[in-house]
């Protein structure tokens, strides 16, 4: 199993440009997540999905959009890039759980710089 894969690894965008960060998992997990990690700031949830066709906002959704058409893929779209979106973006996936939590498996991250 490849686990959670993300592309690209690095990207530099100009202000106002758009891009899509790709995320794919091969573990048949129904839950998928997008986080951003700023230096010294921990992980902040952007969006999450509990299954194909179902997405919901996290803590910091402004400036981003997502879609989930398949179980495997969960792309994150930046429409008008701003310097405040300079960050490292992590995709994660997990099984659902009735106990209130389940282990999230993280991808290697995408480092995005907006100048």
């Amino acid at each position, binding site marked *: 199993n490849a686990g959670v894969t993300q592309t690209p690894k690095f990207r530099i965008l100009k202000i106002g440009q758009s891009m899509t960060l790709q995320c794919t998992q091969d573990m048949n997990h129904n839950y998928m997540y997008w986080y951003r990690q700023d230096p010294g700031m*921990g992980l902040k949830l952007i969006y999450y999905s509990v299954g194909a066709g179902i997405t919901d906002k996290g803590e910091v959704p402004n400036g981003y959009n997502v879609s989930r058409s398949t179980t495997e893929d969960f792309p994150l779209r930046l429409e008008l890039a701003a310097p405040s979106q300079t960050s490292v973006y992590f995709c994660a996936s997990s099984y659902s759980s009735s106990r209130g939590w389940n282990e999230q498996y993280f991808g290697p991250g995408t480092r995005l710089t907006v100048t």
Partner: protein
Amino acid sequence: QKEVEQDPGPLSVPEGAIVSLNCTYSNSAFQYFMWYRQYSRKGPELLMYTYSSGNKEDGRFTAQVDKSSKYISLFIRDSQPSDSATYLCAMSAPLGGSNYKLTFGKGTLLTVNP
């Protein structure tokens, strides 16, 4: 008051030292308590998780939860240079059904010097 507080360090210790990493929290609804390890330029990986107050041991690592004080700790015995990483605490609170909210600390950067 932030929901989860974690001293970002950095923390530098000699090889073989005992390391103590800590987080405090304010949300009584947190049920699961986790420690993630993140190597430089990699994604976080789950190291340990606990549900109830008390200690949980896994090799050189011990996770401790004190719900009455809202305090969790991770102890690393006989620390090795390969333990050099950022350690993030995380806590989950139920949102209803099978949904939950996961809140991360800022992470503590640990360097173990040979």
